């Protein structure tokens, strides 16, 4: 089993490497080049040359990639094109904010969704299940901004429970921070919990249809015992996978939610950079997001290995 874990870890590292290559390739392959795209049609040839030199574009691609990667590993992600700020200094606090918001939502969503998903599966066909089915179906169909605006209208504008813009800054007291981010966190939670609930439900249903569950019932075990002792240990692996998959939804949701609530997170930074075509910032943000994502997936896969009974007790 240790060997499998090590393999998976190495695979994770390899994936990160491949992802960095992919990001770099995508941003550096242009019809024309970065210089003319950014400086525009009216740029003089001399300006283009100077610009290229500034960006280090006169160096061959693989060398540029290598420089970029080494720099990134040292925490140097370069300088923004638009405002000349040091990228890493821009990213770090914002990454913290985004992770806080995502973590807040995950903390609420995961137990809620997994618990309700298991409940729905156990009561398949009954009212609880039908209700869960229809409500989650509607929830996953709604765009994030729709949910966000509805919440703003009902909780911030009509009644003054929460602020409609979430301003957080460094050094803010924890409770204040939690208060400011509650509305966006609720929005994220609703979104992700719905997906997770549906997937958890189908995973548990799949386990409930196995012959050994039937055998447990035939031995005279009570429903509760069958679910807790027989079904859940085998549903653990698929549920972990479900949670990992939904961390992806979380990342996607975070970006839009940050826009709605004008929350100073990494998503906002990236969206700004995209609209301004600030390539170094785009590369950096993309790399950071991807790293978080790959790390989460690798962790989840390793957990799945650890939980597998066939691997814990070898032949």
């Amino acid at each position, binding site marked *: 089993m240790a060997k499998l874990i090590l393999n998976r870890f190495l695979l994770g590292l390899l994936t990160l490497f491949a*992802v960095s290559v992919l990001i770099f390739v995508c941003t550096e392959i242009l019809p024309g080049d970065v210089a003319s795209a950014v400086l525009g049609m009216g740029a003089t040839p001399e300006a283009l040359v100077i610009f290229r030199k500034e960006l280090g574009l006169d160096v061959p691609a693989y060398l540029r990639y290598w420089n970029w990667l080494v720099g990134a590993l040292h925490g140097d992600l370069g300088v923004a094109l638009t405002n000349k700020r040091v990228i890493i200094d821009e990213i770090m606090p914002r990454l913290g904010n985004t992770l806080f918001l995502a973590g807040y939502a995950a903390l609420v969503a995961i137990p809620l969704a997994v618990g309700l998903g298991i409940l729905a599966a156990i009561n398949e066909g009954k009212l609880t299940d039908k209700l869960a089915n229809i409500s989650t179906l509607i929830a996953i169909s709604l765009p994030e901004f729709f949910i966000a605006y509805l919440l703003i209208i009902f909780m911030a504008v009509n009644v003054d429970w929460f602020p409609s813009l979430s301003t957080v800054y460094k050094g803010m007291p924890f409770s204040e921070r939690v208060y400011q981010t509650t509305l966006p966190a609720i929005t994220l939670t609703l979104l992700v919990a719905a997906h997770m609930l549906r997937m958890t439900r189908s995973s548990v249903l799949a386990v409930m*249809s196995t012959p050994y569950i039937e055998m447990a019932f035939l031995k005279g075990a009570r429903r509760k015992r069958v679910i807790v002792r027989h079904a859940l240990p085998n549903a653990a692996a698929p549920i972990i996978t479900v949670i990992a998959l939904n961390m992806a939804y979380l990342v996607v949701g975070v970006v839009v939610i940050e826009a709605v609530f004008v929350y100073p997170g990494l998503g906002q930074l990236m969206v700004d950079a995209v609209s301004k*075509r600030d390539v170094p910032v785009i590369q950096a943000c993309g790399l950071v997001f991807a790293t978080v994502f790959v790390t989460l997936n690798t962790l989840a896969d390793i957990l799945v290995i650890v939980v597998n009974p066939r691997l814990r007790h070898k032949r």
Partner: protein
Amino acid sequence: MKLFGHKLTVSAAFGMAVIALFVIVSLFTPWLAPFPESANVGGTWDEPSMTMWFGGDQIGRDMLTRMMYGARMTIGVALAITSLSFLIGILSGFVSAVVGSWVDIFFSRLVDVMLSIPGLIFALIILGVFGSSIPVLILTIAVLDSTRVFRLARALGINLTVMEYVEAARLRGEGLWWVITREILPNAWAPLVSEFGLRFCFNFLFIAGLSFLGLGIQPPYADLGGMVRENAAAINFGMMAPIYPATAIALLTVSVNLVVDWMLSIDARPSGAQAEL
């Protein structure tokens, strides 16, 4: 009531009705819309009235007209994306499943790496570099989405390739094209159709989300997500302007999901949880 020989539920009927409405509106917008696409007929964020059913948008155009044109655009783009994504995904998925060996390994690894970057992030990167023109949007999102379709098609293909009737066809010496189109595809229809519905919803929401961020369909084209963005400020005054296009998006997506859910439940067998004790 029965449709195609299967019992229709209330929710599925509702869903189909809404989808039909959207399709008709999108196809015949120029004839059905009360006003021309960009005509200024009222004041900013006018209240709904008899002439303007949903009131005015941020510069006084008829909200309903804009929504109809916006729906036409957004649905059209989403449909184009999904179709292209399916074309790419199914071909590569089935070929990988049937041929196997290095073709399969190549595509699977490529898809694995692509799926290691969250979709929105990847899309943002590409759009940031290439700009947000409609062809770029369609191509980028389609390629990204095809990874999911690839996974499904490949899984279906592998399940079907081990069927003896596929082996019988290969033993005969049938070519790859025959095996894919005559042996595998006819048996993979049902899950693929429901997946089409689900992917359409996802892409529809995705493009609306991108437009909402200002990175999707650019003005002057009307599109539902962009309309939410343009009218967003009205929220602060307690006005419902951005809610209308957002509701339109939600309504279509819910309807497609209801219909797909119904399709999936037709074939579903009751699980062990329903055994009689």
